[in-house]
């Protein structure tokens, strides 16, 4: 089954029962129809928000976006062909409740794992893309995420096209222990090989990109980019507060904070994403000559 099918099914799923709105629901924002922005508190139509790529119409707050929405928004229509979609996690450590949690997330997110990979084009440029989805196990990286990203990098190498990754992850997946940790090394050695062969790597960090993912492939782009307001961190804010007992700045570990400290090439609004990435891809197109 292709990823697309999963989602269309999800969208057209009919409710099997009638719903009676509760008092609370009546007085509050109707769920689904309207959405309230957590930043500016303004209310807008969910449909309009969705049309605006989940960017608040008033203040520009970037709402979370799932893998399917990103493919629809950034990849040229009809060009996306998913690869390795059938790969699923095992339970190598026999970790308690892990398989049940995976199954639950598969149902909830309609995804097989926390990353979707495939071949497609963006602004007419062919590429291999990996899109992480934080609705599956917080986007954490276990063996499958590491393997799918590595296979995607190898595919980009084989096809001689750029590798673009949208990251969203809480870090390495605890339930697979050191195997998860080693995926950081696996993806990084694959990127090194690809890079040495002249491959172009673009990393777009989205909210949140932390821990083992920010400390591996997310930071290894030729271009490291981020969406506005995205949390990008190695260690969690609470851990740091406990260890240093010092007040942290308001914008600590946001994309803006990283840009200020020289860790990012640029912050790009979702609304400009296709145009800006296309520009980079275009400049990297071989054969550019002085007119």
């Amino acid at each position, binding site marked *: 089954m292709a990823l697309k099918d999963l989602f269309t099914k999800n969208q057209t799923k009919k409710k099997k029962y009638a719903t009676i709105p509760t008092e609370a629901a009546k007085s509050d924002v109707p769920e689904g129809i309207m959405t309230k922005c957590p930043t500016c508190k303004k209310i807008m139509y969910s449909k309009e928000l969705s049309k605006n790529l989940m960017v608040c119409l008033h203040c520009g707050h970037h709402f979370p976006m799932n893998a399917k929405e990103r493919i629809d928004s950034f990849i040229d229509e009809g060009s996306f062909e998913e690869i390795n979609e*059938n*790969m*699923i*996690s*095992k339970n*190598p*450590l026999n*970790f*308690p409740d892990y398989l049940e949690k995976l199954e639950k997330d598969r149902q909830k997110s309609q995804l*097989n794992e926390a990353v979707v990979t495939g071949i497609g084009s963006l602004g007419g440029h062919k590429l291999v893309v990996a899109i992480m989805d934080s609705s599956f196990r917080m986007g954490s990286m*276990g*063996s*499958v995420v*590491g*393997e799918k990203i*590595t296979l995607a990098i190898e595919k980009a190498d084989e096809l001689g096209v750029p590798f673009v990754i949208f990251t969203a992850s809480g870090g*390495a997946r*605890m339930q*697979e*222990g*050191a*195997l*998860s*940790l*080693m*995926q*950081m*090394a*696996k993806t*990084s*050695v*694959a*990127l*090194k*090989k690809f*890079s040495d062969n002249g491959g172009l790597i673009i990393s777009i960090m989205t909210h949140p990109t932390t*821990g*083992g993912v*920010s*400390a*591996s*492939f*997310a*930071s*290894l782009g030729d271009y490291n980019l981020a969406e506005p307001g995205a949390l*990008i*961190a*190695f*260690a*969690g804010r609470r851990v*740091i507060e406990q*260890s*240093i007992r*010092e007040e*942290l700045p308001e914008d*600590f*570990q946001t994309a803006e904070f990283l840009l200020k*400290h*020289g*860790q990012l090439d640029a912050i790009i609004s979702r609304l400009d994403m296709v145009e800006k990435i296309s520009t980079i891809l275009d400049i990297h197109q071989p054969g550019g000559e002085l007119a």
Partner: protein
Amino acid sequence: MIGELEFERPVVELRKKISELKEFTKNADVDLSSEIKKLEGRLEKLEQDIYENIKPWDRVQIARLANRPTTLDYISFLFEDFFECHGDRTFADDEAIVGGIAKFKGLPVTVIGHQRGKDTKENIRRNFGMPHPEGYRKALRLMKQADKFNRPIICFIDTKGAYPGKAAEERGQSEAIARNLFEMAGLKVPVICIVIGEGGSGGALALGVGNRIYMLENSTYSVISPEGAAAILWKDASFAKNAAETMKITAPDLKELGVIDDIIPEIKGGAHKDVQKQAEEIEKILSASLQQLLKLSGDELISDRYNRFRSIGEFALINDLIGVK
């Protein structure tokens, strides 16, 4: 005795009893030699039982002992002419990582390792062996230098993790670790990594992309500390003992998972009981491993390292599972 742990108490007590008896027979007119012999036999068996069945949590305790040998301890036994090189050339010298050039049995090498302190004063200087980005960048600088002069690189891993702090985040802790993983993949010289104490997550891995990875028998290597895992899993850090078992963080577990190549046996009761002897054990495996790796060309070393990490991970395909459910 310093470095005595709960699980080995029966051994320590019996040993004490035997020496008391010996002392007593010296001054008294009784012959207890047969008693002593019997007790010594029991001690041997007890030692075997206890030291050959060390539980994961006890290994964690051994790995964390304040007097467990550190990188600099091993360097002094294993290498000649160690010349320490400081600084990342950009920001500072991070003393949580030491590195330099030396000779190993006559062969020029580069040695790098996490360095923690053994007392509070030294630990403050060494930041408890938890590096900042400049520590990783110093390590990378020295690795590149080794690559240039065709020297094998030996890394000792011994850290609770990369330091979680404001300054570390500002200077790009993530990028520094990621960069090391990436650049180590491209080194044309043999890279041998040895976990000697705690191998804490990404901060350990940043010195860990080697052709061969070994662990001392009582060291640990994990994605999260047992306390951290317990806090998340059971919402209670006191379940760390359970987490240590569940997380598979010991050398035998990790060898089985294919994460490490081999286990370096430890002195009975732990490396701290005899550093020199422990260094000899390390020397054996280093020699053998270098002999193998020195036969490979630069490109072969790179693909050897690639294949080593490429194969780690366990997963299934949906189609494989149909019928299994």
